[in-house]
């Protein structure tokens, strides 16, 4: 019996186009507060609109001719769960032998899923930026969302290049805002950017908190700074800050100039074609979350198309050979030390890409993309 299996395996190995099935999992929350369209009472789009599953579908469509040529049949298994059912969904997909799962979940649900799967499947985290999730070093967990630190490093590079090195740092009270502000402070320390003060804002109009909610007071009482960096996940406070500051200084971070994985205004590297394919399918612009699920699915399908032998796709996916094209002009690979996808970060205004990090002049001994995020030497698993 064993010999027969060995023979079958050998035959399969030599066939050029091997008929194969791949089921790609997708998991998201039934109602994810991060996508709540009704968050702002005035229906101002403060939240990404639409469903990141669209990114996965586009990637499968984009890669179809390649997967067809390889005799690979790709199907999708879409799971919509509640936070309390994430673990059982993880167990189910392991039981069904689904090897690759694209996850659009908040960090705490990613952690639950990774625990439940226990390395039996590769999970691609597409939208949770927490550095703590990278440092948790779950087996089988890869990240196509940029980490907080990558976002912060991208912004810092721009500030250093502009010589705007005296920063007033503002952040909200939510956990996400604190995390992003902390990552900014870390990045600032590495590049010797001076944070002249760090202040917490409050969304209320409570007169007792006016030092926190009045923008003039929040940004005043300091002799000078070059720029205001604001961390504000909800975006409700930050949108009022520009043009109301005590000193006439640019506001960046959560408003004004925003670092992100993707923006529709990118005009180079084939990005307009990706955007127009996405828009043609969905009737909306591709957000960074859609790009992230798109590139995650592309990564897996590329590995299946290009790995030399069946069973080595996981190794290929994590190797230097991946050279993934995310339409940002450089080949991308996953960092072996924490599973993070190396990528350029766009610095976008509402309608233009002002710069793309890594910015010219920021050097690295091995790969300039590693100037963004925790580098191997400063990284340790928790």
């Amino acid at each position, binding site marked *: 019996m064993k010999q027969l299996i060995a023979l079958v395996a050998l035959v399969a190995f030599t066939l050029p186009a091997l008929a194969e099935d791949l089921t790609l999992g997708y998991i998201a929350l039934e109602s994810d507060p991060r996508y709540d369209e009704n968050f702002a009472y005035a229906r101002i789009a403060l939240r990404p609109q639409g469903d990141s599953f669209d990114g996965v579908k586009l990637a499968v469509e984009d890669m179809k001719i*390649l997967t067809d040529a390889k005799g690979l049949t790709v199907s999708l298994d879409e799971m919509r769960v509640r936070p309390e059912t994430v673990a059982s969904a993880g167990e189910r997909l392991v039981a069904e032998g689904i090897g690759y799962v694209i996850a659009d979940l908040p960090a705490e649900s990613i952690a639950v899923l990774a625990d439940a799967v226990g390395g039996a499947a590769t999970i691609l985290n597409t939208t949770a930026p927490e550095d703590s999730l990278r440092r948790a070093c779950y087996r089988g967990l890869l990240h196509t969302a940029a980490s907080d630190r990558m976002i912060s490093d991208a912004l810092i590079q721009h500030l250093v290049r502009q010589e705007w090195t005296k920063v007033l740092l503002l952040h909200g009270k939510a956990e996400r805002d604190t995390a992003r502000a902390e990552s900014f402070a870390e990045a600032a320390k590495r590049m010797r950017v001076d944070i002249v003060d760090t202040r917490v804002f409050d969304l209320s109009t409570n007169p007792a908190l006016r030092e926190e909610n009045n923008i003039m007071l929040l940004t005043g009482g300091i002799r000078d700074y070059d720029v205001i960096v604001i961390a504000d996940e909800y975006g409700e406070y930050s949108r009022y800050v520009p043009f109301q500051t005590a000193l006439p200084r640019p506001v960046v971070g959560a408003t004004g100039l925003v670092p992100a994985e993707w923006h529709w205004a990118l005009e180079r590297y084939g990005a307009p074609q990706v955007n127009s394919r996405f828009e043609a399918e969905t009737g909306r612009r591709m957000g960074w979350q859609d790009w992230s699920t798109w590139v995650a699915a592309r990564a897996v399908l590329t590995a299946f198309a290009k790995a030399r032998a069946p069973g080595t796709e996981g190794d290929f996916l994590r190797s230097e050979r991946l050279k993934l094209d995310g339409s940002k002009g450089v080949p991308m690979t996953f960092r072996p030390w924490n599973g993070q996808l190396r990528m350029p970060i766009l610095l976008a205004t509402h309608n233009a890409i002002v710069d793309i990090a890594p910015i010219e002049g920021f050097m690295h001994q091995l790969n300039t993309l590693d100037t963004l995020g925790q580098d191997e030497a400063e990284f340790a698993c928790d």
Partner: protein
Amino acid sequence: MKRFFLAAALAALPLAASAKDTGLVFVSNEKSHDVWVYDNEFNVVKKIETSRRPRDMKMNAAQTLLYVACGDDDVIDVIDIETLGVVDQIPTGPSPEVFAFSPDESVIYVSNEEDSMLEVIDMESRIAIHDVPTGAEPEGVIGTPDGTTVYVTSEVADMVHVVDAGQGVVTDNIIVGTRPRRFVLTPDTNELWVSAELSSEIYVIDRDTNEIKDVLEFLPPGFRPEDVTPVGMAITADGSRGIISLGRANHIAVIDAHTKEVIDYVLVGSRAWSVALTRDESVAVVSNGLSDDITLVDMNTLRPIRSVPAGRVPHTVVIDD
């Protein structure tokens, strides 16, 4: 000394003989929507306004007409080389990028970047007679001299489609490196070369078997592999030398086309892209997409002669000599 050398190099350029072989150099500029025309001393003699986003250009065999694919207006503009004006337009599908003629110039094969098709347009009726579905973002197109086969790349699917020109169907797919862009055919070794921009490689394909014979990599001194983003290529008529533009590495590589050994790297402008040779092969003209200029390279000394301003985002160079 330097001056003398420069003058000597320029004198080596062929002089205009007749209306044909005018010696004119044409450069399409994607973002200024025009084609700049230089004389054989690289003075700008005319800026021809075209439809929007002119990219690939090809001359007809008689060297009387220059065809320019204009991506944002979905047409191929036709420029009369004698009058240097747009005299005709051929409608195409959405976003034409690169194209090739059949050997008898009866049809054009054009890649439509936005709807993933290789479109076959009949030159006489100006009608698309056939569409060959390709992978997403088709780019490079080249036909074999015998007219039997057309090759087209898909930038997103990382493949080369082999198209039977007679039947208009894909007969084979070759999986290559990341973001395959352009092609050249070797004149003497039956090879197809494909540049893979993001995996920094040139794939050498045997045209009889469609098998990958060789994968070439380049690394000019002081650069990293990921800086090397090859796109444009040219081969000398005798098949002895190949020229590869290395994109963000700001160099071209000149290689022995048989042994594939690098002879030298030559510094050009920022994001070196398209390459064209003068007929006597004394000068290579390289378009630099991010420094809005073209660089002239002396092919004997393998040194840059000088750079000349072009329009915004120069794309393709065609030389009428």
